[in-house]
């Protein structure tokens, strides 16, 4: 699904913020990415959701080399990835409904075909009453839910979430985690960056990736050579 091999990332002439990152993400697996602030979690996620190319190393996604991939092919890959941003990044002049429908519209789904899934998603996140509300009128938790709904509505193969439960109450956090788990059971590979240790303990079989000072801690080599690969 995702392969990083000897990946390094630097911004300008500064020292590398990520160095020698190597791992394999298996299809249908669930990963938590942890580490202290400034360890490079967001930079790693940026490379995962194709907002940043690495400075060195090999990145393969869905079996294709992304480092050398021409720019015009990237949108097709991005449509297979759902991203929940820490700062939500909702489009402020669009309603909650339109924000959620955005990935489907970009993918060319007709209005007729997208109204059902969008309505279901609004019900699921408990915002069907506020479907036409603009993000500015929603609470932080409500915005977070809209952002998550937008990330998952197109049934991505890879779901990346950066602190997805940072702005929601524990009950909603568990509901959101339940959604991620459900998507994972349907075959979506999930990567969640979080500081919340309670969240991590809630998912069985989830693997943990820990970043420290720009390097990935992989003492057993399981991230680089997962069991399936060893066989």
């Amino acid at each position, binding site marked *: 699904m995702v392969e990083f091999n000897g990946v390094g990332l630097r911004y300008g002439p500064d020292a590398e913020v990520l160095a020698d990152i190597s791992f394999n993400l298996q299809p249908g697996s669930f990963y938590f990415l942890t580490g202290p602030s400034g360890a490079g979690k967001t930079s790693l996620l940026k490379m995962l*959701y*194709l*907002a*940043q*190319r690495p400075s060195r190393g090999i990145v393969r996604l869905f079996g294709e080399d992304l480092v050398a991939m021409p*720019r*015009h092919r*990237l*949108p*097709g*890959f*991005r*449509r297979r990835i759902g*991203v929940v941003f820490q700062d939500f*990044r909702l*489009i402020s*002049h*669009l309603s909650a409904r*339109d924000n959620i*429908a*955005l*990935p489907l*519209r*970009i*993918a060319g789904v007709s*209005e007729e075909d997208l109204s059902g899934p969008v309505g279901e998603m609004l019900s699921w996140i408990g915002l069907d009453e506020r479907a036409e509300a603009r993000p500015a009128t929603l609470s932080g938790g409500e915005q977070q839910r809209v952002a998550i709904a*937008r990330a998952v509505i197109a049934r991505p193969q890879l779901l990346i979430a950066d602190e997805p439960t940072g702005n929601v109450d524990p009950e909603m956090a568990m509901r959101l985690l339940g959604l991620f788990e459900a998507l994972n059971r349907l075959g979506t590979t999930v990567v969640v960056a979080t500081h919340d240790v309670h969240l991590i303990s809630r998912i069985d079989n989830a693997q943990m990736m820990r970043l420290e000072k720009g390097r990935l801690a992989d003492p057993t080599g399981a991230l680089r050579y997962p069991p399936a690969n060893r066989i």
Partner: protein
Amino acid sequence: MIIPRVPVQHRRLLPDHRLSGPTPWVIAILMMLTLLAAAAGVGLARSANAIGAAIAGRVTVQIVTANPVVRAEQAAALRRRAAAQSFVRSARSVDQQELRATLGQWFGSEEGGGGDDPVLKSLPLPALVDIDFVGEDRAGHMQALRTLVAEEAPGARIIPHAEWLGPVAQLIRSLAWVAGALVVLMTLASAAVVIMTARAALGTHYATIEMLHLIGATDRQITRLFQRRIAIDTAYGIALGSVVAAAILLLIGWQWSGVTSGLAATASLGPTGWALLLALPLLAIALAALTARQTLLAALKKIL
């Protein structure tokens, strides 16, 4: 497609603030000035061409023989001989009455026209014969005419009109070129305004663009959104500028229709000129859309 088709739901990705920025108004002013400059250029060029065509093959033979009877006979003989030549289209003796009427406008006369003014009548006026050549061999025609004049009216002066009206026509032609250069400069300024607008739009909506990119929007999808918006905004400006320019041109045309004398009477736009003026706004909209598209695509390529 000058204004690309974008689904209604996609149009909402950009906030709907039509005509809120300065772009349509700046474009309207530039378009109005462009059309006025173009109209001036076309009018001047046509005027210069009309004058050039009128004077290029025309000469006046001025017979100054002292004896008025001989002078009149020489003029009549010269007109007859000239009219019979193959290189002459027409030859006309200028009537003395007409000459006095012309002079009367300058000197003043009791009758106004001056035709029968006793003072003017007493002036020894030369006999004039206007001759129009055919074809382009001006030098050859002039040589033949000199021979003819030497035979029929020795001592008469031949005055080619191109010698004294030529510089005026050249000046008018130069002004037409200046007007053309102004049109080009204002077109470039309009394109620059569109480029700045496109870049400003990208800056204003950067967060939206980044988000659209990250969920898989192509450069083409994003460009169409902005291209449509910019094309419509500039089309509003172009339409407004064109309407104002048309009103000004019609007003000038109406006032011009009263001018019937001299060089001013030769200035007009003609069908080609009007066609050019009608085509300019359409070309401007196409140029704006194309410029916006190229600017947007170039800018988006800098974003991963």
